[in-house]
């Protein structure tokens, strides 16, 4: 094929062929254009909504905004749980010219440790350049001030504030309020299960223990959203929309912080708990467990050293003793006496002889009274006044364990009181069935006798005692103990004369306890009144000279078992085996406004009257203040000035 070869060409035939082929090509071009256009039409018209949605979901992002947690007040409006700003120092790398130099300078100014700087550079690597990275998580006020003055020197470095929980009364309220702590994986899983994760997307902490935990849903509030436009890197370009969060509800508690302070002072140096409640409502006035700990430590994340110290303390500060079981000892004698009357095994006038010991027929064991030579002839009232063990051994024997535990369960022993914190223990109300289930053993009559003086397996929480006592002073009307008085929307209790629950749904109402003979209430209550008011009765001394008319019952619980014929001597017994002191009280006698239960562990000397009763009195003195409550039975009207007690007989 030579390029120079001369060919005879049919020009017009060639032109025709070319024109045909060109036309075919052109038809192809038009066809392809139609396909392209059809495809774009499909995308832009047929699937427009789909792609518009996807385009928006590309660029629009919802940034969660955490709601402010509801505040908590005491009954008089004193702030118990606050939200305080915590300042952190943050850096946006993109806005800093020389990041190394800038961090060095600002660290020098604010005295930021090299560890924090190292941590900062490490976390900076994993973040986008326009996202803030934390250099210091908790600046002091001084550091904030110092930085503010010098801020112009550090572009890209700024202070950011976040609200964190703060408990101004520190350890005084921890056992009641609990605390808010950082949401951990377990919390997150639980929130996920409950379908609440979305609402917690921006939330830092969650209620752990106490009121903070129980009313988490009320306190937390509803999340808000900032709708922003972002680019492909996630950088916020502008805000499109803002839905503000709904703050959590503020709570008002029934607690009286001044009373709580007195309770703490009265318990200082002791291990124990006190619960004071309004029997008209069930509202807790004071509830304090000593020793306590500072809940604020947990808000920022407690150091492992501090936590270990709390965990390993012999005094067990982490335990809320108000809701832990103690052997009730003689404090339950009024309830047992009422059971005897109800079951007709005794009458108010039935007398037995107390020689100082009690013995079951055919058994060698001797059950001793606290008074070696006995109380002589004893009826029900005297048995309570003097806390006569022999009377109650006999009563318990006559009743039997089943009747006792049935009645005690109606007073709420061995069950949750229903208080609005989750840390409550049921404690133990022993019964035949309980022992079978627990130990797989049958019940012994000797154990019934011990139950008769509030020992054996029987344990009660101070809170259960206040609840049972409330039922007693209310002549069978039962109240559910509670800490919440109101939140910002609804009032649970109204104050003033009409004490009643406006929203009973919050607290499940309990069926009242009715007696065959309603007069028996007063028999027992009067005996308790005598216990405090009658010269020589077990709780007479600690309540001498009150302006209000108190009633009560003491108790001393053996923690260690004492062998037959062995005498208890506190000094010779190791500290953790010494007796517990117990006391329950209410006042005024005619129209009770306050019921109190006190438990003190391992007292060095004496029992309920010398250790626990004075604690209860301090709280009552504070409660009544200068109010003078007169009544016909009050000892103010009895001439007691002549009566001098020369020798103290330790009661119980």
């Amino acid at each position, binding site marked *: 094929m030579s390029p120079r070869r001369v060919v005879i060409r049919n020009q017009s035939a060639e032109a025709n062929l070319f024109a045909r082929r*060109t036309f075919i090509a052109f038809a192809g071009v038009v066809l392809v254009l139609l396909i*392209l256009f059809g*495809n*774009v039409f499909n995308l832009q018209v047929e699937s427009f909504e789909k792609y518009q949605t996807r385009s928006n979901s590309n660029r629009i992002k919802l940034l969660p905004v955490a709601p402010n947690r509801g505040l908590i007040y005491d009954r008089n409006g004193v702030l118990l749980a606050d939200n305080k700003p915590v300042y952190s120092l943050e850096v946006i790398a993109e806005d800093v010219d020389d990041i190394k130099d800038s961090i060095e300078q600002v660290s020098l100014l604010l005295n930021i440790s090299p560890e924090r700087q190292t941590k900062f550079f490490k976390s900076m690597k994993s973040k986008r350049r326009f996202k803030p990275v934390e250099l210091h998580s908790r600046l002091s006020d001084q550091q904030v001030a110092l930085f503010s003055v010098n801020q112009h020197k550090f572009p890209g470095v700024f202070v950011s504030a976040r609200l964190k929980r703060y408990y101004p009364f520190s350890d005084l309220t921890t056992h009641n309020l609990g605390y808010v702590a950082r949401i951990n994986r377990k919390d997150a899983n639980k929130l996920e299960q409950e379908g609440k994760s979305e609402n917690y997307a921006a939330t830092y902490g969650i209620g752990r223990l106490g009121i903070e935990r129980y009313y988490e849903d009320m306190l937390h509030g509803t999340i808000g959203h900032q709708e922003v436009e972002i680019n492909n890197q996630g950088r916020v370009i502008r805000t499109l929309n803002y839905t503000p969060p709904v703050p959590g509800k503020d709570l008002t508690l029934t607690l009286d912080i001044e009373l709580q302070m007195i309770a703490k002072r009265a318990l200082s140096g002791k291990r124990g708990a006190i619960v004071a409640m309004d029997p008209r409502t069930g509202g807790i006035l004071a509830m304090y467990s000593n020793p306590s700990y500072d809940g604020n430590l947990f808000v920022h994340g407690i150091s492992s050293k501090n936590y270990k110290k709390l965990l390993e303390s012999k005094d067990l500060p982490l335990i809320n003793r108000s809701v832990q079981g103690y052997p009730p000892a003689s404090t339950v004698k009024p309830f047992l006496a009422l059971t005897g009357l109800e079951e007709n095994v005794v009458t108010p006038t039935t007398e037995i002889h107390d020689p100082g010991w009690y013995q079951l027929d055919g058994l060698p064991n001797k059950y001793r009274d606290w008074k070696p030579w006995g109380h002589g002839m004893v009826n029900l009232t005297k048995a309570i006044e003097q806390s006569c063990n022999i009377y109650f051994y006999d009563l318990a024997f006559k009743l039997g364990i089943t009747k006792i535990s049935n009645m005690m369960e109606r007073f709420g022993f061995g069950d949750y009181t229903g208080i609005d914190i989750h840390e409550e223990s049921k404690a133990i109300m022993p019964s035949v069935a309980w022992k079978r289930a627990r130990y797989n053993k049958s019940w012994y009559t000797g154990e019934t006798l011990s139950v008769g003086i509030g020992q054996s397996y029987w344990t009660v929480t101070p809170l259960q005692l206040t609840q049972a006592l409330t039922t007693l002073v209310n002549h069978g009307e039962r109240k559910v103990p509670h800490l919440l008085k109101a939140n910002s929307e609804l009032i649970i209790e109204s104050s003033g004369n009409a004490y009643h629950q406006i929203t009973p749904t919050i607290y499940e109402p309990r069926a009242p306890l009715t007696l065959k003979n309603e007069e028996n209430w007063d028999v027992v209550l009067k005996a308790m009144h005598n216990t405090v008011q009658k010269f020589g009765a077990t709780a007479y001394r600690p309540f001498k000279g009150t302006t209000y008319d108190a009633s009560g019952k003491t108790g001393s619980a053996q923690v260690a078992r004492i062998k037959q014929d062995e005498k208890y001597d506190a000094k010779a017994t190791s500290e953790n085996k010494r007796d517990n002191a117990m006391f329950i009280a209410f006042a005024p006698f005619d129209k009770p406004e306050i019921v109190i239960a006190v438990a003190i562990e391992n007292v060095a000397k004496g029992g309920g009257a010398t250790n626990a009763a004075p604690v209860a009195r301090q709280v009552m003195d504070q409660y009544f203040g200068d109010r003078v409550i007169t009544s016909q039975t009050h000892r103010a009207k009895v001439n007691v000035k002549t009566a001098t007690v020369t020798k103290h007989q330790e009661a119980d």
Partner: protein
Amino acid sequence: MRSSGQDQQKTHTLWQRLHIDVPLLLGLLTLLALGLFLVYSAGGQDIAVVYRKARSIGVALLGMFIVAQIPPLVYRKWAVPVFVLGLLMLVSVLLFGHVGKGAQRWLDLGFIKFQPSEIMKLIVPIMIAWFVSQDSLPVKISTVVLAFILVLLPTLLIAKQPDLGTSLLIASSGIFVIFLAGASWRLISACVGLASAFVPILWMFLMKGYQKQRVLTFLNPEQDPLGSGYHIIQSKIAIGSGGIEGKGWLQGTQSQLEFLPERHTDFIFSVFSEEFGLIGVAALLAVYLFVVMRGLWIAVNAQHAFTKLLAGSLTLTFFVYVFVNIGMVSGLLPVVGVPLPLVSYGGTSMVTLMLGFGILMAISTHRRFHV
């Protein structure tokens, strides 16, 4: 009316002398101007990008003008030596080429860096047009076979760089010449059959991993929406969300917020569709159709087989750009690096295209003075 007719006659003559085909120029200028607006929007509203694009346009127009002055038969004369030189350059690219973006495409001559494959886009159609126009049309089978081999040589060398887009364009420029030269339909069907048989071989032995991935991604982009499927998905979102009227110039969220990759280069059609909608797309396709029609008109009216074939091939290859680019960004074709002709940012391909249009203008305007 008469005077205006006279003016027209005069201008026509003036443009003739300048060797400029006015309708074609108007079509091209429309596309170039649109490109300026679009790279401003797609390039993050950076005026510097627009200046650079404007400079390239200036160079390209100048190049087109110069090329248009050369009588087309000069190309026929130089076809063989230039083709041989081009092949040598392609070989040297593979041997000493400058590596950019994972492919060897650039040749550094010390004073200038350029892509021989770009020049081959012009040389190959010239060469094949010269080759098949030796005999009278329609082409004989033996000529077709030899022409195919001539096309295949540069195509494979470029595919080896690897540059799938350019090799595709070069192959089609050659094939268009053969088609327009009247290759028999039987032969064409045989070739199509052969090509289909070649696909598995291509897949198994010749294609690189990333190229296979592109094809897989094309078949199912949602399979890896954040990885290999990201580009095409974001592009379809951009186009689809534009709707009928579009979001408005500079208002396309997909491009302004940088969800769209390669916005001012290969994916500029997505930016255009997002901001100007279906109406804009229809207008743009109409302009492209106009340019193609004018190019084919020039081809049909050319006086020699060589110039006819060359003009037809250049025009249709230009359209291949349009088809492949729009097809790939709208999800009809796998992603191969082909720009939207004259609109995309990127000087090299634009200059080559404009040189091609220079040749078309030469064919259009020189015919009356030639021979």
